[in-house]
């Protein structure tokens, strides 16, 4: 009970207000001559919500949905080698973790780097507090892997301390498939998991997060989506909205004031319930619940 109260208290913390002016995130990045040889090859570029599309052709909307403030891009050169660092300042730690989980997939670790991250020879992605950072080594040279980690370590050392994200604790740990947990703040995040309807079907309004994860047990597998709201009335409104706008490929088989059961396009089932401030959807169930 205490744990549930703590989780909901964390969820109800107000989000950081939008930045009133551009923040200089270049202070987070390595300076000229880093490791003795890496020089900045271009002036840094900054992108805001208004022009993020200028940098990301395809996918900027995902950042905006989670809550984006500013991107700082800095290119470095050492002889024929190039690195590009992208530092995304998100609105809050959940926004940064949300975009990280979407981008990282199953995490693969780099040797000698302890921050939460995933790495391959082309890209190292890390997440801390409200920052999501990518260190790009797009030539993919294996020999630069240790340099990639040094860049990431330098940046991690400049970032604000880690901040807990309570929403993921909405997911029960038992049976959760490792690497499947996601945060959702709207239509684009949710569609990666399951389509319950058009648009912001859970009324998350880009300011609250739902959590999702895949589960496996002896009884079968399913996907769980859990959203916490400020109060029961808000959760009820989200449930009503979902009922009224349920995806056209989902067929209602049972409907009660606080429970909805549907059959989907692949003959699997889903059940949505609302209890207090919590809305929960279990989907891809083999048997009718």
């Amino acid at each position, binding site marked *: 009970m205490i744990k549930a109260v703590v989780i909901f208290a964390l969820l109800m913390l107000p989000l950081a207000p939008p930045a009133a002016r551009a923040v200089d995130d270049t202070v987070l990045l390595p300076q000229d001559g880093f490791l003795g040889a890496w020089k900045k090859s271009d002036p840094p*570029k900054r*992108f805001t*919500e*208004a*022009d993020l*599309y*200028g*940098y*990301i*052709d*395809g*996918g*900027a*909307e*995902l950042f*905006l*949905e989670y809550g984006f403030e500013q991107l700082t891009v800095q290119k470095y050169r050492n002889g024929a080698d190039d690195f590009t660092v992208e530092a995304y300042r998100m609105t809050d730690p959940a926004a940064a973790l949300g975009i990280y989980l*979407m*981008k*990282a*997939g*199953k995490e*693969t670790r780099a040797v000698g780097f302890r921050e939460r991250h*995933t790495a*391959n*020879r*082309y*890209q190292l*992605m890390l997440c801390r507090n409200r920052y999501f950072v990518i260190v790009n080594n*797009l*030539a*993919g040279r294996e020999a630069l892997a240790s340099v990639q980690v040094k860049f990431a370590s330098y940046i991690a050392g400049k970032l604000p301390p880690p901040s807990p994200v309570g929403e993921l604790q909405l997911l029960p740990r038992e049976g959760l*498939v490792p*690497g*499947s947990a*996601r945060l959702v703040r*709207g*239509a*684009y995040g949710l*569609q*990666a*998991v*399951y*389509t319950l309807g*058009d*648009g*912001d*079907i859970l*009324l998350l309004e*880009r300011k609250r997060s739902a959590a999702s994860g*895949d589960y496996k047990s002896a009884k079968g597998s399913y*996907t769980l989506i859990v959203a916490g709201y400020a109060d029961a009335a808000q959760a009820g409104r989200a449930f009503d*909205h979902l009922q009224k*706008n349920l*995806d*056209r*490929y989902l067929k209602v088989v049972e409907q009660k004031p606080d429970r909805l059961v549907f059959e989907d*396009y*692949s003959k699997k089932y889903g059940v949505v319930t609302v209890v207090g401030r919590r809305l929960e959807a279990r989907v891809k169930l083999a048997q009718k619940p």
Partner: protein
Amino acid sequence: MQKYRSMTANLPPDRREFLKTLGVCSAAVSGGAILGTPAVLGAQTTPPKPVETNLDDFMKVPRTKFSVPGPFPGRVVRATDARSLVGDLFDGKVIASMVQKGITSLTGRDMKKSFDLFFDKKDIVGIKVNPVGPPLINTRPEVVDAIVKWLTDAGLPPQNIVIWDRFDYMLTDAGFTTERFKGIRVEGLQTMDEKGSNWKDKDGNHLSINNFDRDVFLFAKGIVGKNVPNYPNDEFYLNQHVFNGEYSYFGKLLTQRLTKIINVAAYKNTGPAISMATKNIGFGSLCNVGRLHVPLGLRTSTQVIAAPVIRDKMVLNITDGLRGQYDGGPDKNAQFVYANHSLYFATDPFALDLICHNELKEKRRAMGVTVNDNPRFTEYLTYGASLGLGVADVGKITVVKA
């Protein structure tokens, strides 16, 4: 002198009478897939209303012998060779061999007769590439090398070949330059300034407004490229899309110069859907398409392909699946990029996309990525089939290994 014409481009075009009859598209949203830039966010809370477009006008234009789906509806050829990509090295010779096998297997003819099937030596052939996501998941220049060689070996003058995409700087970033492709034209339909500070001429017009044909367009009633939810900077919209308003104009390159098009897509996802053949041409041939992402979704691509300027010129589709990306697309995400060692060939872009969609879906499943296989993500393909533009029934598609 035009004073900032692009800001008032919802004025009637020169031949507005062309639009007296509007097609009505029952535009169920294709799921809000991430479709490229820019998309507007799904703030909508009610199902979308049908969108009126000029599709009916497209459909009234008689088809030609070159019209999509071409001579081989429902036929998809896959050429696979593990030697094509080893580590990060693409082998141009192996790739050229794959292109030859793919084309001859598709047509049942040798390369010269295959050329004659689609082209003559006076054609101006546009090669539409996908430069998004370099260097990991864009159309590979080596594939284009092989296509250029095929065309020139058959007698097409190099100056009759144009490698093109919508944005100029992306072509450069992906390696499509005149230095790399000597004697070949390389053209973006428009200039695009990443930071949005250098895209107007001295009169305040977008530098590229004259690159688009006011007489040839996709119209979508009431869907305008300004004041869209969560799209705060109208100026930046114009930087990227050249015009606001209800009209998306096709590039003059397509309407006035190219006589044939080869569509060379990359092999990648966009959300639970794919960004391959239909989307490569559907969102890359015209301006002001950001407005269409939510109300029309991937059906935008279907309607664009139905436009005679595309339908009657796009004679061949080659999807570059030497590398694939099964998640995190359409921009590069190395975590999900893999060597797929395959090229795909079809005259029917809808059959091609359906086969590739299903393949990529299985890849996602195999890699443990959550699969959302809601049918809405392939509706645009069955929609294309309903318009007579291709085959979107797996049972009616023949997949040939070259």
